[in-house]
């Protein structure tokens, strides 16, 4: 199936631990993203990579470190987890974010999310 897939689906862990979430897309896109969705359903961008190069880095604690080994993968590592990190984390991909054209933005294709619960 062509898709954006992320693992794990659920992650329950204790404060202070370090965890990783993996994401892979086989849509042939060259831009990938991490979004965080809080309990009020606001989706906020965290990071964006275009062809393994970091292009968007929002105000995110440096405990969060993305890594893109190639343009089909974007992983998220979180150090020293805190209660406030509990949320659903969505990976997404799109065609090139550097495209300039009249046709508008490149729609994002989202993975199914990873629900992180920090206790």
């Amino acid at each position, binding site marked *: 199936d062509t898709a954006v897939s992320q693992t794990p689906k659920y992650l329950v862990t204790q404060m202070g631990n370090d965890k990783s979430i993996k994401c892979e897309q086989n849509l042939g896109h060259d831009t990938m993203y991490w979004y965080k969705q809080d309990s009020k*359903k606001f*989706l906020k961008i965290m990071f964006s990579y275009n062809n393994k190069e970091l292009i968007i880095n929002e105000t995110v604690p440096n405990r969060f470190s993305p890594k893109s080994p190639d343009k089909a993968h974007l992983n998220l590592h979180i150090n020293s987890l805190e209660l406030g990190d509990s949320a659903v984390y969505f990976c997404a991909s799109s065609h090139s974010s*550097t495209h300039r054209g009249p046709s*508008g*933005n*490149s729609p994002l294709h989202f993975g*199914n999310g990873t629900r992180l619960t920090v206790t």
Partner: protein
Amino acid sequence: EDKVVQSPLSLVVHEGDTVTLNCSYEVTNFRSLLWYKQEKKAPTFLFMLTSSGIEKKSGRLSSILDKKELFSILNITATQTGDSAIYLCASGKAAGNKLTFGGGTRVLVKP
């Protein structure tokens, strides 16, 4: 700071009703307005609008953008229970494909 506000927060309708969802935005270097539907998991793309006054239509869903008044509406006619979801709108900037999402409108369609 870029801002996208959706209204209402939630609504409950019966099958066959028509719903209208609102999205207003304040974005620098605006490029396009996107609508997504989120059921249990991943948001799925519905529409992208770049020009004022041109309606986009897909089945019972339609959407229009007003770039002067900085808003968009999403209409769903003859609603079905399968339309129950959170509908998200997002504004896209001209550079970097950065999308700013609103908080969504939760729609519940009762049989």
